[in-house]
């Protein structure tokens, strides 16, 4: 009854070497990613941290780097994000609900809609900018105003919000819908009282991440005319600027101080982004459901 030593013998050396080599490749990939990000962060923080102060957060831009700030740009960005949220969430969630709960997938127009949304998510943002310029700014004569910028960003992130909301709605198990129907609930009651509440954490997370993408967008805003020298606080129907645009403009200046100011602007933008992402993660963990 002795077990032959071969039964529990070791694998061939070739397998071991391949395994170790693969592990090393993975480690290198991770290190490269982290290192690049780390170097960028350290560089930006080292240069810009001295300029993050009340002047930066509050004052308008100026040709004197000591007095220049990004106040109107930060406020423009915040206004735009609020407008964006108000527009993108109802439209996005509505579309997702229609596609998941109501649409008959046998119909050609619903399939077309679905393919379109998937494709729209991959369209480069500059194309949205051109659309905004041609259709919103010139076509319906909205002009180069904050609302036009918010509308373009809405279009830009709408597919992302729709896709995220659909995932969240699809994650609600069918047994819950069936249970509700079996009690004599109408489709409206099932969707409104069961599906939507259960999907809200996922929808919120997706929306925040979409917002985080929109906040860093520069190209489409340049095209709809986000001015770089706005000295007054933005209004919905007035000319405006946004934080990424301000950074872009400062980077282009010849004076060294403006580059440091740009680094400070990047820190502010990153801080807002990280806060939003952290909030999304917290939301996801807080309301995580098990079925």
């Amino acid at each position, binding site marked *: 009854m002795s077990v032959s030593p071969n039964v529990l013998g070791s694998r061939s050396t070739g397998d071991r070497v391949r395994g170790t080599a693969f592990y090393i490749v993975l480690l290198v990939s991770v290190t490269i990613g982290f290192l690049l990000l780390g170097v960028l962060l350290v560089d930006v923080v080292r240069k810009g941290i001295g300029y993050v102060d009340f002047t930066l957060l509050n004052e308008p831009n100026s040709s004197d780097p000591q007095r220049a700030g990004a106040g109107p740009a930060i406020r423009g960005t915040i206004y735009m994000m609020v407008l964006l949220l108000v527009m993108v969430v109802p439209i996005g969630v509505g579309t997702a609900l229609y596609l998941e709960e109501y649409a*008959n997938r*046998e119909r050609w127009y619903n399939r077309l809609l679905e393919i379109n949304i998937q494709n729209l998510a991959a369209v480069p943002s500059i194309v949205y900018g051109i659309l905004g310029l041609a259709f919103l700014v010139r076509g319906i004569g909205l002009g180069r105003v904050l609302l036009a910028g918010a509308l373009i960003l809405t279009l830009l992130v709408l597919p992302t919000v729709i896709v995220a909301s659909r995932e969240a709605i699809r994650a609600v*198990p069918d*047994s*819950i*819908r*069936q*249970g*509700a*129907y*079996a*009690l*004599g*609930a*109408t489709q409206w*009651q099932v969707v409104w*009282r*069961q599906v939507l*509440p*259960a999907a809200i954490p996922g929808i919120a997370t997706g929306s925040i991440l979409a917002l985080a993408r929109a906040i860093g967008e520069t190209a489409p805003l340049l095209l709809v005319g986000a001015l770089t020298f706005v000295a007054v606080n933005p209004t919905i129907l007035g000319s405006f600027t946004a934080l990424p645009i301000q950074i872009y403009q400062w980077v282009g200046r010849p004076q060294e101080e403006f580059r440091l100011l740009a680094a400070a602007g990047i820190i502010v933008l990153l801080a807002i982004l990280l806060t939003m992402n952290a909030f999304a993660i917290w939301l996801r963990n807080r309301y995580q*459901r*098990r*079925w």
Partner: protein
Amino acid sequence: MSDMESAPAAPAKIPGMDEKLLEERARETTSTKREVLFDVDTLNVAYGGVPALKDVSLEIYKNYVTAFIGPSGCGKSTFIRCFNRMNDLIPTASVEGTILYHGTDLYGNEVDPVEVRKRIGMVFQKPNPFPKSIYDNVAFGPRVLGWKKDLGDRVERALRHAALWDEVKNRLKASAYSLSGGQQQRLCIARCLAVEPDVLLMDEPASALDPISTTAIEDLMHDLKREYTIVIVTHNMQQAARVADMTAFFSVEVDEERDIRTGILVEYDQTPTIFTNPTDKRTEDYVTGRFG
């Protein structure tokens, strides 16, 4: 095995089946006067044109427990879902034939499936509580029907009816997911009872539960049939014999050429007859364990 040693000379049709229980069942069903609640006539169900259930006709009696048994894929779950029009939720499903309920065809043009489901409740195979509190689970049905008066009393009554009240009365605000599987299933039954249905449809209500919870659900069915008519799908023949007054045996007809499996009703009779003296050879093979 001790069962084998103590087996009588003439073995029971089903190993372990309680003969006394069956006799008692037989007395119960013959002594009461039958009142037809559902009259099913040549019902055919198809999914995307492929027949799933063929020419089923039977009557279901008021205040009886009726069991549907049969091998997997014999259409018994499809059939039970016809009674509250749950098949309407599957876009490709089509139902032909009639199910008369108190004389009205459930599939008539003027019938609203939402009204049907209000009267005919359903408990599913896997407990499916809503991701809400225990109280809100039971209150959901009354709320969607707009019954706002005495909601608390109604919830308590339903929970008492489902024999769950004593276990949850101190934590009605707790999540329904904090309950055990058996408690969750009783919560789902309470949820149905809260809308005061006529009929309870149960699609393998105990198949995901442990033996003790199963016993609790079976006892509950026995109590509930005084007020409700119960239709149950079960894989477990002992369970059918324990709880059901009437039993319908379904089987599968296989069309080899087109690779289609269609459910058919083989035999429908009083439970003791089905288990001890079936007419059809297929029923006998199934209940004695030679098939399925």
